[in-house]
């Protein structure tokens, strides 16, 4: 049973119909969502037809008893509770625990207002005031610093505050101004002790230092304020009743009020003031208290809060529930006393939604586009065909049988002529006459005579083509057309039936729908096309004429003479005898159309197999359908289902212009004028930008510092449209990264990974609760700073450095190759020169000498044969000598190519050869130090030097012992050849040359040539020592040697 404050006619009548059907008012029950207009709540709806949504702890509400609700200009909803301050974006609650940038802890909130300047005023229970603007909180200053007990707004939107010490203040142009400059003085001039409530005095201990227990007039804490049309500012106190400020003075109202505690004040629509007290509500009409206008139920209730919506509904929050007051009286929101709860805050947002604060959370009341009535309690909820007569009776024939009508929430079943045992296929009528097409019982007409229906039924016996009448239509000339299930169409005129079938030119004998035009033209929807009858001439339009399908389900002759054709292949229309396909590529309009109606706003309401659509008629006629020309309605719009019924005339307009839809689940009605309103755009906000999970302050231009780990930038955003927050969709793009806008998404976070350094701009737009993208975008520019290695200068210099390095490597390699080549060339050159020198020194000279001898011998012949013979003997001797020398040279060449790497071994081999001449000589080689590799060329030179010295020792020293000592020292290479022989004749030592060989000076010269130094010690009879010293740098290749080997791959280069 409904708890009713003032019974309305609807409720009275409802009791009549109770035995038939139960009214199920369901909007919003199946879903918590609804569509929104910038329109307040439909005053014509019953309270329970509003869609409601509740947020308690279970849905993320942080908890606490709500004390105030408001909305700032940026679209956020702010909720004050006895625990703190909360911001709500439709999905998420965010608690503001701290008044950043200060460390002030916010705590319990008493009141919230948003002023005309876009500031949020937060009155704390500690009597401190906070102002929030652009993400920053600011503590009240000067007069407003402490002791504020109430905040409100003036008519011009400026903030109105009440200070205990300074009286009423308002905030304009950045300054607090006292409205009663004399009040404080007056109060301080007053003698007597100010009366302070106990809990007030504890809360006002601050005041001791400021004003010695003195309060401004009215000497009590003002807890409610309002400004009325006459410019008076009303002050409601917690214990002293009502005061007002006029001409900068405070006056007591002197009214007889239900109670002295004034909880809330609300200026009347034109004049007057609604006063909510602890013990009831009162209306001051400008001159007197006018009790008559206050509903009896509110006269003694505890009134906590009041708000007036833009449609003029006055909403009153009481300790026992929410009450709506309008021209129809007062209605309670709660179904039963059990559901009653204390309403502590009320607020109407910019979209017209009503927000209700309770001790447990918040609640939102809003209209849905549709109101749906459940028409049957049986399993099938289909309401079948509908017809609305001139008495606003909505006739319908449920699929399971029977005929009913509904008016104002009351339903009546009609049983005449066993209609309750038959299925009603179709309903039509005019004025007081209703025609019913029946599944089995033929055609029945109902007349209301003195409020009671009188039925008359026609069957095949009367000349009807068939008893299954699928569609009935009353044309403008008064004749009734009965389209049968399979027998063609029968026309009833003047009591006589005329039947038309395929034989007459009809497209098919199954008639789905009939329409007529003022010109008398008739149209019949058949499975074989659309048949047209003009003055006894038939014509059938089929797919050949442009119909999307031949099976025509419904037709609608609209106000401008266009015939709309709903087929199984979509929508088409007939205009000037031409059929045009209507839906274009839009898939929604290519479904089987089950019903169509036209509203007064230029829209067609189309029900297809599975969709409910509102389509712009003009756009459809023009064949240019944009997305915004089609609006689809779903469960969240108050429908219980979107599946249409297969009955003629399942969509119809009533006399008020409302569109009724008979659906598979219930009967839904929409007021097109409300549904067609411009919907309030959503406000998109970028809330946070996080880098690798850590939020970045959004103040100023966002610079994300350089770091190697920047791999994930996430952006959280919100779209503020509170009617159906779940329906809000977003499209976003990141300029500098994305090529275009994203697909619409419901997610409220965009994540980008691996963004390179550079400038970006994140942009987001939100669709509102109606799915319209009519809001402006929100954008956050940011810049990811490059790490130093990502900086342009670094990258370009790296490229240059790399190029230089490559070039250097190239040059180095080139140098190495050419050097290696040079070394080889030099070695070969040296070798060649040496061979040439050998040849020159020995062979050439020898042969030239020989030639001279031979020449000499020849000169003697024939005169001096004896001399010649002697000369020739000498030539032979010389020849032997030359040969020996040449052999030596060749041996040198050969042995040089066989020189062992190990010098000591090489010398041992030489000594072995030489020992052939002097087998008695003992030879040994001493090696000191670790053997090291000599430069190959030098090694040959040293070898030859040593061989020469050894040869000297063997040939000339007559020694018994010969010793070669090789010392590999760190700083030098030393070779010593010593013998214990005869020593060298000092003359030879100086002049050097012994026959045939370099001699000591030659050796010295050689040594000098390859960078060594030769010393000779000799003493007659005591032997000789020849010492060759070569600096390490030359001997071992010096420090540059490793470098050579590094790249050159010199292995085997010298000779092998």
């Amino acid at each position, binding site marked *: 049973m409904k708890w009713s404050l003032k019974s309305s006619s609807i409720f009275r009548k409802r009791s009549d119909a109770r035995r038939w059907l139960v009214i199920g008012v369901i909007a919003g029950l199946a879903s918590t969502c609804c569509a929104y207009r910038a329109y307040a709540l439909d005053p014509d709806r019953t309270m329970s037809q509003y869609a409601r949504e509740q947020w308690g702890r279970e849905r993320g509400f942080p908890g606490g008893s709500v004390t105030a609700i408001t909305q700032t200009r940026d679209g956020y909803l702010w909720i004050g509770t006895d625990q703190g301050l909360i911001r709500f974006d439709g999905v998420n609650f965010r608690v503001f625990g701290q008044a950043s940038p200060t460390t002030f802890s916010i705590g319990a909130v008493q009141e919230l207002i948003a002023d005309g300047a876009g500031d949020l005023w937060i009155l704390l229970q500690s009597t401190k005031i906070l102002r929030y603007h652009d993400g920053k909180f600011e503590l009240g200053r000067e007069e407003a610093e402490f002791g504020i007990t109430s905040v409100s707004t003036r008519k011009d939107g400026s903030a109105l505050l009440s200070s205990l010490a300074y009286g009423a203040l308002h905030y304009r142009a950045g300054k607090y101004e006292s409205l009663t400059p004399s009040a404080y003085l007056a109060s301080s001039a007053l003698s007597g002790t100010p009366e302070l409530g106990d809990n007030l005095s504890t809360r006002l201990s601050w005041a001791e230092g400021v004003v010695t227990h003195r309060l401004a007039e009215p000497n009590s804490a003002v807890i409610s304020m309002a400004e009325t049309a006459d410019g008076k500012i009303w002050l409601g106190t917690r214990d002293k009743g009502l005061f007002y400020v006029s001409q900068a003075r405070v006056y007591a109202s002197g009214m007889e009020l239900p109670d002295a505690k004034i909880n809330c004040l609300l200026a009347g629509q034109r004049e007057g003031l609604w006063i909510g007290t602890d013990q009831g509500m009162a209306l001051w009409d400008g001159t007197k208290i006018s009790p008559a206008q206050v509903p009896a139920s509110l006269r003694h209730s505890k009134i906590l809060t009041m708000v007036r919506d833009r449609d003029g509904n006055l909403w009153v929050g009481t300790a026992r529930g929410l009450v709506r007051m309008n021209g129809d009286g007062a209605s309670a929101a709660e179904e039963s006393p059990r559901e009653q709860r204390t309403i502590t805050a009320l607020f109407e947002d910019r979209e017209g939604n009503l927000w209700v604060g309770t001790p447990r959370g918040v609640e939102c009341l809003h209209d849905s586009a549709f109101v749906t009535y459940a028409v049957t309690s049986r399993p099938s909820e289909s309401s079948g065909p509908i017809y609305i007569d001139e008495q606003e009776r909505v006739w319908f024939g449920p699929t399971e049988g029977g005929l009913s009508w509904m008016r104002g929430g009351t339903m009546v079943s009609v049983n005449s002529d066993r209609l309750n045992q038959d299925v009603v296929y179709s309903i039509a009528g005019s004025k007081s006459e209703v025609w019913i097409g029946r599944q089995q019982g033929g055609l029945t007409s109902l007349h209301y005579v003195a409020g009671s229906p009188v039925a008359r039924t026609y069957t095949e016996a009367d000349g009807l083509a068939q008893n299954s009448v699928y569609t009935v239509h009353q044309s403008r000339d008064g004749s009734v057309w009965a389209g049968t299930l399979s027998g063609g169409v029968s026309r009833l005129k003047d009591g006589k039936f005329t039947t038309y079938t395929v034989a007459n030119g009809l497209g098919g004998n199954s008639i789905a729908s009939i329409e007529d035009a003022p010109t008398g033209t008739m149209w019949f929807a058949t499975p074989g096309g659309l048949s047209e009858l003009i003055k006894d001439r038939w014509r059938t339009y089929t797919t050949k004429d442009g119909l999307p399908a031949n099976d025509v389900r419904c037709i609608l002759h609209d106000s401008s003479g266009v015939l709309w054709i709903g087929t199984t292949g979509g929508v088409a229309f007939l205009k000037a005898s031409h059929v045009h396909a209507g839906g274009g590529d839009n898939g929604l309009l290519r479904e089987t159309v089950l019903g169509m109606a036209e509203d007064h706003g230029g829209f067609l309401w189309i029900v297809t197999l599975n969709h409910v659509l509102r389509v712009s008629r003009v756009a459809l006629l023009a064949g240019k359908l944009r997305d915004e020309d089609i609006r689809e309605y779903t469960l969240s719009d108050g429908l219980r289902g979107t599946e249409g019924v297969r009955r003629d005339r399942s969509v119809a307009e009533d006399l008020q212009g409302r569109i009724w839809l008979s659906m598979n689940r219930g009967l839904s009605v929409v007021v097109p004028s409300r549904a067609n309103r411009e919907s309030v755009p959503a406000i998109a906000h970028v809330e946070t930008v996080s880098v690798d999970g850590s939020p970045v302050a959004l103040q100023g231009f966002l610079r994300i510092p350089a770091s190697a780990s920047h791999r994930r930038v996430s952006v959280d955003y919100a779209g503020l449209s509170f009617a159906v927050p779940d329906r809000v969709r977003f499209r976003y793009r990141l300029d500098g990264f994305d090529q275009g806008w994203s697909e619409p998404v419901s997610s409220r976070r965009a994540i980008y990974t691996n963004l390179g350094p550079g400038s970006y701009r994140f942009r987001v737009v939100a669709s509102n609760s109606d799915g319209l993208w009519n809001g402006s975008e929100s954008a956050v520019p940011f810049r990811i700073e490059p790490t130093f290695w990502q900086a342009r200068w670094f990258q370009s210099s790296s490229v240059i450095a790399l190029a230089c390095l490559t070039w250097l490597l190239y040059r180095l390699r080139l140098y190495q190759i050419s050097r290696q080549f040079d070394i080889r*060339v*030099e070695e*070969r*050159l040296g070798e060649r020169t040496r061979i040439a020198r050998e040849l020159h020194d020995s062979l050439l000279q020898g042969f*030239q000498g020989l*030639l*001279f001898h031979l*020449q*000499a011998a020849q000169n003697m012949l024939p005169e001096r044969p004896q001399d010649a013979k002697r000369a020739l003997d000498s030539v032979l001797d010389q020849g032997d000598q030359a040969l020996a020398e040449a052999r030596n040279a060749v041996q040198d060449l050969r042995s040089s190519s066989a020189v062992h790497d190990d010098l000591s071994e090489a010398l041992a081999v030489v000594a072995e050869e030489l020992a052939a001449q002097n087998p008695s000589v003992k030879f040994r080689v001493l090696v000191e130090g670790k053997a090291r590799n000599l430069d190959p060329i030098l090694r040959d030179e040293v070898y030859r030097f040593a061989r020469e010295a050894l040869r000297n020792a063997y040939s000339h020293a007559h020694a018994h012992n010969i010793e070669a000592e090789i010392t590999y020292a760190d700083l030098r290479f030393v070779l010593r050849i010593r013998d214990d022989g005869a020593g060298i004749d000092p003359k030879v030592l100086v002049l050097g040359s012994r026959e045939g060989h370099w001699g000591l000076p030659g050796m010295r010269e050689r040594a000098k040539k390859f960078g060594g130094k030769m010393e000779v010690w000799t003493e007659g009879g005591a032997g000789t020592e020849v010492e060759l010293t070569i600096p390490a740098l030359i001997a071992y290749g010096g420090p540059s040697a490793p470098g050579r080997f590094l790249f050159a791959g010199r292995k085997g280069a010298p000779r092998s």
Partner: protein
Amino acid sequence: MSTHSEPIRILSVDDHPLLRAGVVALIETQPDMTMVGEATSGREGIELFRATRPNITLMDLQMPDMSGIDAIIAIRGEFPDARIIVLTTYGGDVLAHRALKAGARAYILKGMVRKDLLETIRAVHTGRKHVQTEVAYDLADHAGDDSLTAREVEVLALIGSGNSNKFIADKLSIAEHTVKGHVKSILSKLGASDRTHAVMLGLKRGIIQL
């Protein structure tokens, strides 16, 4: 050939014993010539020249302690009318040019002079100069060429003994890139394609000796 006059007094300066022996053998077959001394080096040659005052000195150019050209200069410095015949294994215009410039009266190659030697000695003795045909051609061939500087000759000689630029630079106490400059200049002046070619040309033209 005159038989009545004083025999031509000849000094031979050559470090190679076999060659000296050959020359002696050849001279001694001639009645109008007599060997007055044999020296094995330039220095010894100068000393013997002072001691023997020969009419003709046969001078080898390549000797261990002092080059023949230096010896010619020294002798000519002391005895301006000394008649010196260069008898050498080496051809080459440069060497010949240098020797002639130093004051040699004749320039003959050991390999070519079996027959000509005696004639040349006599011709020089009568005051004529003599340059062998091959040498004359060589001289003519390179008459207009840029001559290598002393430093370039040094560098070329070091290249010829198989030294790298770095080593040459160390030896001459100059920078390596200076050596490179010299090499470049040498190649250009000799018209050589590379170092080996330059050395060959240097040897051929007598710019350097083995």
